[in-house]
């Protein structure tokens, strides 16, 4: 409604009221002169009709008086605003009477003026009340009612016409309209849905306000009757006041109906509040999951809500100790008005009856001997387990002092609560498992990155050997490592190994071994001979073992083999610390064989004494010889039937390919391994190193 229209309405109200005042004064003979006396009634009537119409129109377009579900606020504003104003008006009227008693000369004019003021206030009051009732009637109403209200207003509008139509109103029409409006009014007054939304104290307040509103209307009625009796020309015949009477009647009728509805529904409000509390508790329980609370919180909310809903005098939530992701300190005493001794006795009694972890309900506990012996003051009990088909979380016991304290409906409500709690617990578990899974995925990714970084990118080259490598990590990082160092004096150090375990820790130990290798393979400046310039393999292993002893995990160990190949001497030294035996083709003996040498893995003996378990081996090589180093991922690779590739096959493949260059040997062997496994998933890292000794160019 635009400001301009509002201004127009207010102006019309003002104008009409002034006209009313003038005509009232004229009637009372207070204007003086030719204007006084009884003249045609129609100006007054028109002014009255006009005034009522514009006031109602104005109030009709005011913003919705009901805010959200604040019914009491609506009633209070009605009483305090227009109500007090109206009361003030009546007070003024009373004052006028007193004044008139003292100054008779003022009487006619003052009385008429006061009367008009009160009429104005009354119309405004009735309009406000009626439109407040509209908000209440239409609160959550069906569309039928919404369409009905404008019809009601239309009929009331006809009533307004009666004011203008003086005596020309056919009786039938009048009674017809009256009848229709009365029925309509009664029908509308039956719509007191808003009362159901009030709590008990709120209903008392509402009744109070309605009484005041009714009182106000009655006061006005009394006033107008009194004024009418005192001064005949002030009021018009009933038919002409039809509109005001009808609206005032509806206002009063609705208020009275509301009063009665609120009063007679007081006992039922208790039930309504209970149901609402149940729903709110259930909502609270559901929110607990969303806020990411712990299992302990869920149990606490469950216990509190069910005690309240079931109106239990004592309760106990027997929680099954959880393991895994839900493991947390047990909820601090899930007991209510029961001692630990009593709960233990209760559980024992149930167990004895074979009723542990089952639904149970008794309205007379003392009827059973087992429970009588407990000495508990309670007579009714509800027992509900919290469980799914797969898992049992706990049991809820609710007790009441009086017998017959529970009925089927209570068990149903309790089940709703426990189901919701179980759902929340399951959700918690799932969320935790998912998080755990995410962590594992992240760990594997990091480990794979580390491993990728540790693979030697460039293989050393020289004219006296050929190296080919193959390294493939399994999906779950396995721990294979290898490294090669070309040392001064035409020496080659080759390290190969396997860390037990998987994941980030294996990757770290791989990095550690690489570091140990690089740092130990440094020339010793104080060495007296060439032999002692670099650590011999057994020494390397002993030192590596000592370095690892401090940080290797309890049940982890590392296998490794270190070869120190010396071109000048035409031979090599090696130590095998628990690793797979190297495969060797000797061109002199024209034989392919596995080396056999003792040697304990690293990280098994963590203190001194390891050096007794590792030895140096010596071997002279010849050009044309081939050495194959590998990890167990190759010989333990399985085919579809579960057979392992095995050392046998590896040996045969080398026998078939030793004469070829190193890279071809490597490719040949790996092709055979892949053909063997034929698409089976890889369970362990596979690493293969092929070193072929060549006829070297004489050094310049």
């Amino acid at each position: 409604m635009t400001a301009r229209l509002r201004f127009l309405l207010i102006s019309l109200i003002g104008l009409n009221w002034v006209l009313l005042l003038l005509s009232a004064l004229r009637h009372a003979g207070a204007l003086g002169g030719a204007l006084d006396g009884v003249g045609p009634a129609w100006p007054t009537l028109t002014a009255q009709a006009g005034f009522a119409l514009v006031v109602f129109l104005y109030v009709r377009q005011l913003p919705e008086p009901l805010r959200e579900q604040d019914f009491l606020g609506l009633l209070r504003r009605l009483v305090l605003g227009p109500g007090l104003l109206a009361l003030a008006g009546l007070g003024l009227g009373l004052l006028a009477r007193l004044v008139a008693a003292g100054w008779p000369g003022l009487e006619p004019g003052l009385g008429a003026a006061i009367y008009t003021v009160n009429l104005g206030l009354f119309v405004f009051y009735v309009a406000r009340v009626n439109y407040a009732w509209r908000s209440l009637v239409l609160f959550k109403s069906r569309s039928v009612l919404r369409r009905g209200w404008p019809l009601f207003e239309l009929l009331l509008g006809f009533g307004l016409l009666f004011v203008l139509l003086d005596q020309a109103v056919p009786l039938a029409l009048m009674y017809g309209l009256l009848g229709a409006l009365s029925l309509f009014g009664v029908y509308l007054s039956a719509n007191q849905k808003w009362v159901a939304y009030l709590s008990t104290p709120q209903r008392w307040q509402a009744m109070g306000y309605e009484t005041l509103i009714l009182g106000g209307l009655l006061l006005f009625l009394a006033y107008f009757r009194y004024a009418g009796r005192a001064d005949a020309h002030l009021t018009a015949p009933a038919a002409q006041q039809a509109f005001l009477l009808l609206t005032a009647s509806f206002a009063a009728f609705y208020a009275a109906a509301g009063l009665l509805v609120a009063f007679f529904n007081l006992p039922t409000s208790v039930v309504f509040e209970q149901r609402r509390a149940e729903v709110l508790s259930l909502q609270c329980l559901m929110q607990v999951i969303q806020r990411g609370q712990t299992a302990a919180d869920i149990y606490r909310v469950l216990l509190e809500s069910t005690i309240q809903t079931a109106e239990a005098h004592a309760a106990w939530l027997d929680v099954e100790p959880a393991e895994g992701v839900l493991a947390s300190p047990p909820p601090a005493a899930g007991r209510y008005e029961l001692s630990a001794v009593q709960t233990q006795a209760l559980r024992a009694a149930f167990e004895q009856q074979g009723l542990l972890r089952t639904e149970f309900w008794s309205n007379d506990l003392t009827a059973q001997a087992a429970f009588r012996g407990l000495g508990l003051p309670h007579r009714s009990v509800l027992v509900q387990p919290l469980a799914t088909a797969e898992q049992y979380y706990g049991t809820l016991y609710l007790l009441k002092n009086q017998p017959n304290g529970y009925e089927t409906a209570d068990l149903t409500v309790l089940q709703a609560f426990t189901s919701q709690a179980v759902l929340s617990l399951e959700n918690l578990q799932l969320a935790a498992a998912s998080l755990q899974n995410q962590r594992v995925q992240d760990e594997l990714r990091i480990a794979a990155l580390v491993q990728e970084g540790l693979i030697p990118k460039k293989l050393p080259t020289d004219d006296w050997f050929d190296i080919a490598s193959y390294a493939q990590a399994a999906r779950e990082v396995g721990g294979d490592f290898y490294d090669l160092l070309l040392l001064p004096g035409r020496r080659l150090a080759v390290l190969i190994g396997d860390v037990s375990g998987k994941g980030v820790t294996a990757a770290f130990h791989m990095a550690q071994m690489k570091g140990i290798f690089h740092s130990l393979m440094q020339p010793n400046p104080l060495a007296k001979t060439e032999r002692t310039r670099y650590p011999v393999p057994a020494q390397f292993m002993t030192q590596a073992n000592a370095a690892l002893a401090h940080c290797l995990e309890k049940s982890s160990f590392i296998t490794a083999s270190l070869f120190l190949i010396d071109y000048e001497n035409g031979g090599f030294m090696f130590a095998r610390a628990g690793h797979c035996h190297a495969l060797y083709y000797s061109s002199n003996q024209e034989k392919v064989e596995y080396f056999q040498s003792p040697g304990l893995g690293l990280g098994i003996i963590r203190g001194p004494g390891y050096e007794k378990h590792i030895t140096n081996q010596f071997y002279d090589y010849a050009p044309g010889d081939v050495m194959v180093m590998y990890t167990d991922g190759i010989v333990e690779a399985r085919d579809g039937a579960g057979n392992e590739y095995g050392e046998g096959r590896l040996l045969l493949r080398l026998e078939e390919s030793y004469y070829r260059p190193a890279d071809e040997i490597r490719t040949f062997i790996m092709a055979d391994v892949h053909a063997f496994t034929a698409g089976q998933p890889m369970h362990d890292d596979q690493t293969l190193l092929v070193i072929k000794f060549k006829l070297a160019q004489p050094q310049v």
Partner: protein
Amino acid sequence: MKVTAQPTGPVQVLLLDGELDASSAVVLDTELSKPELLKFQKVLIDCQRLSYISSAGLGVFISHLQRLQDADVKLVFYNMQEKVFNVFEILGLDSLMTIVPSQAEALSA
């Protein structure tokens, strides 16, 4: 894998049945971690029905070696299948642990 304990006087016999992989290694670890185990003079591991051992399984045995040694409890393996013994041998555990062919020898070891 199933672990069956058969205590006979001062000797505890642990019968391993199945494959000792990463998950069953946890079961074995629990069994070997029991404090009562240290009260025996000997702990014999019957490996007749042990068909496979992973590095996790080996790690469990390795990790309890020192503890048993400190408590003067002798750990003896017997009736090991060839494949499983091979694994122990490559790692060099045959020089560290007592592995014998039969139960009789195990009892007298």
